[in-house]
């Protein structure tokens, strides 16, 4: 059995959840909407997958929603985000519609990548969402490249690169971080440590369980905290984003989180105890997001309105995906090369 979240977090500063003075109810409602929509979107995806509406791999983010929503709340629209194959949430939080994401997983032409990418390869150039990538750690050098471009052009943009604890063992991660620090690139590396790289707990994959310590060797700023509270995630990531934007200095952030589901749909999760999973569910980021609304004195009626809106949004996305057509084979070759 792996170390618990509490054990992994021991010694890590993580301020008590609460309402920073500058947070208004409208922002809280937005975060709650986004987190809930991501949850419902993925639940709908799991259902459609079970009904064999589509196949392939499906890696769900359920349980980690506060990380993507909080982190992306710290960005401007022109900032770049690049992520792994567990990226439905980041795509949505970057502004992509449930329709475009749902249709992509259904393999339809109306999907964000015209049905050519699927669950692991969501892209939206117009939202500066630079994709989900299927080779663990392989996207980290690309992130260094977009940050290099920002520095080259002095365009003031920041790149956020998400990856899991499993990526940290990859050489590509090391090389990306090496270049980002050497060249002082405006980038934030965010390790979403959900304690398991697929079915392998941290203690069997890492000699040092504190990923953020890697930053010390590169001379890079670091941070490490619990990722269940969307506001904490936003504010701590915002510090790193400011450092990237204003000082052109990269940061490695490790956010401790937990996925309630298996690695993918075929994973029965036998490497974790039921008790461990149930314990984690007590700290559901979406329940925490709802509590924040209550604390901020948002009317219960308004909260229910958000929930109803989300329900309709996801229902509509499923219908849209069902009704959409597929890219004809004759059109396929034009995507291999640009003429």
């Amino acid at each position, binding site marked *: 059995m792996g170390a618990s979240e509490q054990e992994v977090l021991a010694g890590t500063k993580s301020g008590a959840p609460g309402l920073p003075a500058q947070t208004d109810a409208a922002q809280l409602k937005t975060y709650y909407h986004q987190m809930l929509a991501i949850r419902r979107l993925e639940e709908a995806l799991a259902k459609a997958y079970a009904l064999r509406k589509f196949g392939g791999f499906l890696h769900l983010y359920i349980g980690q929603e506060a990380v993507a929503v909080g982190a992306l709340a710290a960005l401007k629209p022109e900032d770049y985000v*690049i992520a792994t194959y567990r990226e439905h949430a980041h795509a949505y939080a970057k502004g992509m519609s449930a329709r475009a994401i749902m249709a992509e997983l259904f393999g339809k032409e109306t999907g964000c990548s015209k049905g050519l990418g699927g669950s692991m390869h969501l892209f939206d150039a117009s939202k500066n969402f630079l994709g989900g*990538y299927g080779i663990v750690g392989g996207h980290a050098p*690309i992130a260094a490249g977009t940050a290099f471009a920002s520095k080259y052009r002095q365009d003031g943009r920041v790149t956020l690169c998400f990856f899991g604890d499993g990526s940290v063992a990859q050489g590509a991660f090391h090389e990306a971080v090496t270049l980002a620090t050497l060249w002082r690139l405006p980038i934030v590396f965010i390790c979403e440590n959900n304690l398991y790289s697929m079915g392998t707990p941290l203690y069997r994959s890492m000699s040092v369980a504190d990923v953020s310590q890697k930053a010390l060797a590169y001379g890079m700023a670091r941070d490490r905290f619990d990722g269940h509270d969307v506001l904490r995630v936003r504010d701590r990531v915002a510090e790193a984003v400011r450092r990237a934007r204003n000082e052109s200095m990269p940061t490695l952030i490790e956010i401790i989180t937990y996925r309630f589901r298996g690695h993918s749909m075929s994973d029965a999760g036998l490497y974790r105890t039921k008790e461990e999973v149930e314990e984690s569910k007590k700290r559901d980021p979406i329940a925490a997001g709802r509590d924040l609304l209550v604390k901020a004195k948002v009317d219960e009626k308004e909260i229910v309105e958000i929930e109803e809106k989300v329900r309709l949004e996801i229902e509509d996305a499923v219908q849209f995906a069902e009704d959409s057509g597929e890219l004809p084979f004759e059109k396929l070759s034009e*995507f291999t090369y640009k003429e």
Partner: protein
Amino acid sequence: MRTVAFREALNEALSEEMERDDRIFLMGEEVGHYNGAYKVSKGLMDKFGERRVVDTPIAETGFVGVGIGAAMVGLRPVIELMTWNFSLVAADQLINNAAKIRQMSGGQFTLPVVFRGPGGSAHMLAAQHSQSTEAIWAHIPGLKVVMPANPKDAKGLLKSAIRDDNPIVFIEGEVLYADQGEIPDGEYTIPLGVAEVKRPGKDVTIIGWSKMVKVALAAAEALAAEGIEAEVVDPRTIRPLDEDLIVESVKKTGRCLILEEGWPFNGVGAEIAYRVGKRCFDDLDAPVERLTGADMPMPYNHHLEQLCIPDAPRAVAAVKKLLYLE
């Protein structure tokens, strides 16, 4: 016309393109302060500064990936690999990212990026530093593969590669850098995917690229002394391949020899032989022949090494076999 060395022709292409477009930068190991491991980038640091001529640590996965990322968001990187042997540690970036991002994103992202550097064997560099990698890269849809044989082609093709919107594998024969050749004065480009007849002839077609063009021309010269007129065809671009010019030549000569420095199994020559066999079936007077690198890792010993690389005497012998003269 002016006479310049192969490496100078490449240098001119880089310099002219960088002057034309600020989005173009050169990145790689020793490209800047050291002036290039093979001096292709000589003087570019002085001319363009550290912003546009970027020295990297020895991290091919990292800086090949940086080229991909920078291209995704609108820059036009030229990434130098000190040799294509070292590209293999960045194979995941080239194959899984550079070649696939356009398709995986439904055409939203294009990658105008050139990966360039020396390839093939040189002299006594042994197994890990003597590889021809074009068959590997040409196998991958999404990549283009360009291999110039002389200074004129080197400059014109590199300029076209830099202006192309796709990821390009640009392989410079390591032993060609000092070769002198005439190039046109002033601005010119050579389109990708267009082969060239390097020497006309009517009796046999010899196909070769990069330094194999020199072997083919030497063989043709020797054959001419015996009254055999060989036509030498240089595809110049491996992918896309100018199949039509090759087919046109073979239909005329009825005989085809392919010279390839790399290994035979799944080699570029195997692909060309298939296409020639299919389209010239009724015109062939002999089966298509290949002369390739030996099917083994390159030995260090100089004598053994030279026996593993196609040369003119063996090309001549292969042509005579095709003509049923031996």
